[in-house]
């Protein structure tokens, strides 16, 4: 198998692998296409596949923490913006006093979006928040 690092930059070395979240291949994102109305907002969004590929590349470059972040990012690609912002808000200190709410959020993300790594991050937060007294109203 080839070293994923050889694919980098994808836009130059493997443009065929760069497909937007909507499935539009990179080469179709041209000015003509934009002008004729053939490009929508979802077409300029990164796909989970591209992020996983970037994770492989990062890992191959010896940057495993960055790779894990890209993989968490890949899990969030299909998560709607309002759910992302709501989850972020719930993770902020003192927003949630009942740990069950966070646990339920983790479960929902795992179930509905296959976001296992994100869910694990939330579960880990719940344990620490409880021990450090962060599940307490701040305002």
């Amino acid at each position, binding site marked *: 198998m080839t070293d994923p690092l050889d694919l980098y930059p994808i836009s130059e070395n493997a443009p065929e692998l760069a497909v937007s979240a909507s499935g539009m291949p990179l080469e179709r994102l041209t000015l003509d296409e934009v002008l004729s109305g053939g490009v929508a907002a979802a077409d300029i969004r990164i796909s989970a596949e591209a992020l996983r590929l970037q994770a492989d590349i990062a890992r191959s470059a010896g940057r495993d923490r960055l790779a894990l972040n890209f993989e968490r990012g890949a*899990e969030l690609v299909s998560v709607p913006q309002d759910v992302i912002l709501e989850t972020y808000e719930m993770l902020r200190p003192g927003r949630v006093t009942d740990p069950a709410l966070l646990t339920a959020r983790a479960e929902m993300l795992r179930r509905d979006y296959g976001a296992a790594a994100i869910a694990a*991050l939330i579960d880990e937060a719940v344990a620490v928040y409880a021990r450090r007294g962060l599940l307490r109203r701040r305002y």
Partner: protein
Amino acid sequence: MTSTPRWRRFDEWDSRQLRHDLFAAEDVEAGFATFHSPWDPAPSARVENGRVVEIDGKGEKDFDILDAYIAAHHLDPEVIDEAMAMDPVEVARMLVDINVPREKLERLARGMTPAKLVSVVTAMSSLEIAFAYSKMRQRRTPGNQAHVTNAKDDPLQLAADAAFAVALGFDEIETTMRVASNSWANAMACAVGAAVGRGGVLFQCSIEEAEELQIGMAGFTSYAETVSVYGTEAAFVDGDDTPWSKAFLTAAYASRGIKARCTSGASAELLMGFHERQSVLYLEARCLCLQRAMGVQGTQNGGIDGAPLTSSMAGGMRELMAENLIAVWLGLECASGNDTRVSESEIRVGAKITPYLMAGSDLICSGFGSIRKYDNTFNPSLFNGEEIEDYLTLQRDFQADGGLTPITESSVEQLRMRAIRAIAAVFEELDLKKVPEEWVQSVAAASGSQETDSFTPGEVTRISEAIRKRGLSALDVVRALSKRGFGEEAENLLFMLRQRISGDYLQTSAILRDGKVVSALNDPNDYQGPGSGYRMSDARWHAVREVRGLQTRATVLERERRHDPTATPWLVAKGEAVKGDDPRDIVIGLSPAFGVELTRTTAGHDLIDVVLALTEGVREGGGTPRLVRMRHTADTSFLGLTAARLSGSGYGIGIQAKGTAVIHRADRLPHMNIELFSNAPVTTLEHYRAMGRNAARYAKGEAPEPIVVPVDGQSLAARYHVRVAMLYAIETGLVVADAPPLELSMTLGQGGIPT
């Protein structure tokens, strides 16, 4: 007993810019400690069953939120025992050893706790830290980031200033707002401005996280660096986040194809009131370990908002460099601070930037104010619009690539105008605003927003609201640009949208150059001593050295050598000069090019006036002036000594065309003159007259007061020596070793005055 007067030097020192700066005494209890506090823990770590159960003297059950995250995600159990056992000085030596590869050190860092990292960099001098930084930083090619903001949130000015910043070579531009609700208009204006010219610049609109994500989703922005982290739990919670909320946010940015970096910096905890009496470096080391743990690609670090406070402490600037070193050692992209202005002293500002210029950095400034200080909505940067040319000159001085390139006046003017017209066209095309031509003209010429007749912040708010409510995106802007004849700009903006699909710029230290991603992956810093690492290409060096106003031989001679070869000479040779026998005789020895090839002194006096002043002065002093042309020398001392030896009185004056003049006596050594006017640029005609008078009075045996040409401390060398050296070469070029001096007469009033 009389009292001792105050030395007035102190009054002068009191009035210097430096005295606006505050300096803090070390006070550990108050958190004022740079590298070490007795409350800092000693380095330690313990692993049980593959799990980190102790960090820096603290057991697992006492871990605060930072310890817990660092234990779980930063520390590599495979490396801990080896790394923690190493002697800090030995590791410090490895950091400056060109034979120890960067990768080997990065591996060790993965097994080091914050206190351990601190113990290593504490062993290093500022020079060693800077050197290690140049070796450990991630991307080989250095870059820079600009702030583009203005006090009115005027979109026309934002577009023009963004285009200017792009033309200067900034790899990233960051904007923010005076009024929060203007964010969408600011983002659109900067995105359009940044598409004028070379394109491919990463752009950020700094605002509250939720809004920033939305603006990013609309395609206007491509990176975010507002993911702030802090070094104590209390400060973190007060900052309204936790390591988990920030790690989640970092993943969210990645999921939207937006490059992200964290922000942290020394003294932030001090400003927030939660320093726990620990040194600023130790707290920052915790922040940096946390950032690696979160999986963010990079950091904006090196004081940032806390940089002025850190710089108030002894060793503060060394500390800022040390934390940047820890950042890159941990494998993070580093936008190395140098943003907030740390001092009112220009000397401290210049000194602050110099090690970074020499070492290079992923982004030397995490916000160079490309606009005027008062327009910098973040606060004045270390360097601002006022000082851009100083920075360009420092690059040239040290032959160091600070990421910027000098640009010509006419190209800047064209780019600015094109950017203003482009945003005006987009606003009109999208039915947001019809921009009056007077506004366009006003903004094009204005240095800053205080001079513009353009949008008010309130009008911008209405546009910004419309952009947000109508859900306008970068695609709409691409269409509008193209429709209105800004095809190149439309392509540039589209190029940025294409980039986000591949995600290439999400990798460590990624920027875009010439339409290609350049990052730590495909352009890794490979410094291993002389002959390796980043060096400017010939083309790059040629561009860097072209600062404005370069003097060339041709331009100097064009201005100075106002010589008309067709004019009748006003100094006519009458044959070989002989020694005079009149005791009142004062010979004035003129240099080879005097009044012929060269016609003005560096002070701008016509040489005819200078000769008249000297000869009239001699007469006033009771002497008889005689003019002699020297050809065997152009040196002032020898001109003067030869003149003195030809003089009946034994006293003579030597003068060069550039105006340097001397009184000499026949029996002296060449460089032991009687009086010397060495500062020709500040020598007046009255001084020359007085010199003539004194020469005659010496001849009569009097002891006149020497003429003092007052100087006020200007660097005449910096101001004149380039011209002087070029002019003097004309004089020396005319020297004929054995040619005897020639007696001269003046033929004024015969049409011989050069124009």
